[in-house]
């Protein structure tokens, strides 16, 4: 369908889109209700794999939420005009994805009805409690940030709000990575590497989401993205993919160097079945090599469709990476008695199986749908479409 034809049915298309996404949200909420009603026994989770598929979705959304704000930060904090035009959309996506991720996390609790307890009882030594404060603060700061951008009188404060949001998002992703980094007993975690690794993962996942959403918005409105801007964003994405790969490499090299970690590395990299496959084929091949090949290919990297494909591959690779880290990290047994073979009725010493159940997937997709619904409606009613004022942007600033 050409754009003129689409224009005529645009209104109906919008409502159809909202209806489809709304239905996904409802299905996700229904799945959560089913899990709460019957208990987690209806999920694939167990006393061995205590965090399952909903956590993979929730953590992806939360990490990507902080990362997508990067686009705004480059504009407001580092003064790049091209990114300034994209800052409101970047802020909106950050809020929407955080809302989706937190909803999934909250609905996967054993007692989601006790949300008020989580908001009123704080153990300040817990990085989880700190995260509750950081998430809430993120909503407030980014909301103010968007307001300073969209309300002309407040524009003078944008730089300050943007700087606060930038610092806050770094703290937030540090804390998200530290949820795992602070787990002293598990071999996959207990590493200061995880905090900066989560930050760089957020840059990649967030930018990938931004590129896709921006592409859809431009297509929907029959507009074309400027070549130079397209080139900048795709180059930035390639740098982030490379940085995530570097952190992954150092993480595994460090583990391989420690004798006590060798068995765990063997499990993830060689014998781990689904985890090994997801690592090599999901994260490395699909999530790293393939998008890099596209983004650096002289022909393909100029085509919007291929850049969006690369961004989608980054997201797929991100899910694979989080699945390996979260589920693979729990599947490998705790080393309670190092140097001894152990067995028990509680599955000590065994690789723990996990098959995610349908409700877990539905809840996860429900979270994505919440983020999508908030975005679609906000973009409709408020002015989030990036508007490039090329009279303000010297063409020289658009060259790489």
């Amino acid at each position: 369908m050409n754009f003129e034809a689409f224009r005529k049915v645009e209104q109906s298309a919008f409502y159809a889109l909202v209806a489809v996404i709304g239905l996904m949200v409802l299905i996700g909420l229904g799945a959560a209700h089913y899990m709460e009603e019957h208990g987690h026994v209806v999920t694939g989770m167990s006393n061995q794999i205590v965090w399952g598929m909903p956590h993979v979705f929730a953590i992806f959304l939360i990490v990507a939420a902080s990362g997508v704000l990067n686009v705004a930060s480059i504009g407001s904090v580092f003064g790049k005009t091209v990114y300034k035009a994209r800052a409101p959309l970047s802020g909106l996506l950050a809020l929407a994805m955080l809302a989706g991720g937190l909803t999934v996390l909250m609905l996967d609790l054993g007692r989601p009805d006790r949300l008020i307890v989580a908001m009123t009882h704080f153990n300040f030594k817990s990085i989880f409690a700190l995260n509750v404060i950081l998430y809430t603060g993120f909503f407030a700061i980014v909301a103010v940030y968007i307001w300073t951008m969209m309300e002309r009188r407040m524009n003078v404060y944008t730089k300050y709000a943007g700087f606060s949001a930038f610092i806050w998002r770094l703290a937030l992703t540090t804390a998200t990575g530290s949820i795992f980094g602070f787990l002293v007993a598990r071999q996959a975690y207990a590493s200061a590497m995880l905090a900066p690794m989560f930050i760089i993962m957020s840059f990649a996942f967030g930018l990938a989401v931004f590129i896709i959403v921006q592409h859809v918005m431009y297509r929907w409105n029959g507009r074309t993205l400027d070549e130079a801007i397209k080139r900048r964003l795709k180059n930035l994405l390639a740098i982030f993919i490379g940085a995530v790969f570097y952190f992954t490499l150092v993480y595994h090299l460090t583990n391989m160097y420690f004798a006590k970690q060798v068995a765990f590395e063997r499990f993830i990299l060689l014998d781990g079945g689904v985890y090994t496959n997801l690592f090599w084929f999901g994260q490395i091949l699909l999530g790293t090599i393939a998008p890099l090949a596209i983004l650096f290919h002289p022909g393909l990297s100029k085509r919007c469709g291929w850049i969006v494909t690369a961004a989608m591959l980054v997201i797929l690779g991100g899910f694979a990476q989080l699945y390996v880290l979260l589920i693979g990290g729990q599947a490998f047994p705790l080393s309670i008695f190092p140097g001894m073979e152990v067995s028990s009725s509680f599955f000590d010493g065994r690789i723990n199986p996990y098959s995610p159940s349908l409700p877990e997937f539905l809840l996860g997709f429900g979270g994505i749908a919440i983020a999508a619904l908030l975005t679609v409606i906000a973009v409709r009613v408020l002015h989030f479409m990036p508007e490039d004022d090329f009279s303000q942007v010297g063409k020289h600033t658009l060259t790489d």
Partner: protein
Amino acid sequence: MSNDVDNSRRKFIAAGVAGTAGLVLAPGVTLLDMANARPAGEAASSTKRWGMLIDSTKCATGCNDCVSACGKENGVASTGHPETDPQWIRKIELKEVKSGKSHSLPMMCQHCAEPPCVDVCPTGASFKRADGIVLVDRHICIGCRYCMMACPYKARSFVHEAHEDQNPDVPRGKGCVESCTLCVHRIDKDQQPACVEACSEGNHGAMLFGDLNDPNSEISKRIATYATTQVRADLALNTGVRYQGI
């Protein structure tokens, strides 16, 4: 004849008096006994640190007395879903990879002085009582399961489904995390944990319970005399449960 009647009457009166005296005195004796326990309403004291010493050389492979006693005392029963069924205490079979020497021992919450589960709990539901017992406040546990991720001993279980027939002393709820309470409800009545009692009644003598802060307690004397081990001592958690023979 009259003598016989008198005798039987005297016996009756004596039995009656003894019985009445018993009925009158018994509650008093019980009260005296209970008076040794901590009165209700009085906070647990940090002058005590409850702990346990497990001698794995006396713990036989296949013996499950402690596990059964715990299940009965705390109402922890199998539901036929082994992967999601809570286990407060379990028997672990160990084999040294090099020498092939094997051990059997019970593993449960180690009641650490520096419990990682308490550190990570966002709401403070995981807490350590003044006398060293690590517990979950089921009123404010939100079921996030972060403590399960943090525990180095796999001591905690998540209640995956609703449970009937609970022990009134040990309320349990779907959606919360739970673990060995060291039978806190029994300790507060000056009794031993059910697992220790069962091990002793079975004449195994592999489990010793007592106050680690009291240098004259049997457990402190044994720890001062024999080489004992804290599991994952490298983590420096200062566990309340110690092992001998591994």
